[in-house]
């Protein structure tokens, strides 16, 4: 039964990823990414990591992809040129991807990693407790650095939004600069 669930989740995850790449509509791609991330969360559950599964659903599917959806809606979901217009990029990209798959998959398949080696099989019951203990004992410094990175990300997002607002106001006031800028972009 658990084997069947693994194959079900894996096949749905891979199919959703393929649909996400090939889809022409960006909204569908984001929604298929939600499916993919939810399936990966199910795989986390089967691997005995229920806390990470919950975080995956809340942070990835709940926050990050909603942010993606907001941006897609904001930009009017312009399909635009779906594929490249640089010659040879598509066949070369496909070739390199196939080479990557042909390299990765046999390596992984030949390793034959079989199940938990150590005696302590992880059950999901005390998973958050053990994760917290590991996080706040051996990884205190990375944890603090992460808070700094989040602060920088917040400031960066505000600065980016502010600067474009500043540019628009400048363009309104100075028509000459606006024209030179537009010609520069057109070139």
């Amino acid at each position: 039964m658990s084997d069947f669930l693994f194959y079900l989740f894996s096949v749905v995850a891979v199919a959703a990823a393929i649909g996400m790449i090939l889809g022409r509509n960006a909204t569908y791609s984001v929604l298929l990414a939600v499916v993919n991330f939810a399936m990966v969360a199910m795989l986390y559950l089967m691997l005995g990591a229920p806390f990470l599964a919950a975080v995956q659903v809340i942070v990835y599917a709940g926050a990050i992809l909603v942010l993606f959806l907001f941006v897609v809606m904001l930009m009017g979901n312009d399909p635009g040129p779906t594929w490249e217009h640089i010659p040879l990029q598509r066949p070369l990209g496909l070739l390199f991807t196939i080479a990557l798959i042909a390299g990765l998959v046999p390596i992984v398949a030949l390793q034959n990693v079989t199940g938990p080696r150590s005696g302590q099989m992880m059950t999901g019951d005390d998973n958050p407790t053990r994760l917290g203990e590991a996080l706040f004992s051996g990884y205190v410094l990375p944890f603090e650095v992460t808070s700094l990175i989040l602060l920088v990300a917040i400031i960066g997002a505000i600065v980016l939004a502010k600067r474009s607002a500043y540019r628009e106001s400048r363009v309104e006031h100075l028509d000459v600069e606006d024209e030179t800028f537009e010609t520069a972009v057109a070139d």
Partner: protein
Amino acid sequence: MDALSPVTTSHYLLVSAVLFSLGVMGVMLRRSAIIVFLCVELMLNAVNLTFVALSRELGSMDGQVVVFFVMTLAAAEVAIGLALIVAIFRTLGSTDVDDVAEMRG
């Protein structure tokens, strides 16, 4: 490893490798900046799956802690990256990554 043998850690690693390769394929083939960004998230996710599978394999929590950090950084990265994409869209009126070539000499 047989394809339909009882599920082992190898199977999880295999799924992870396939998802990662699909992410690479999306980054190389698609031109819409949003889709490229989504594919980067897909690759991060595939690596996370590897970490969790090997965390169970080794009976250690370290892999899950790393996944925790990767998720946090992914959130920060998405905030900045999407702000950049919106700024580019406001300036150029497009999110085609090939249009962003102003620095070309």
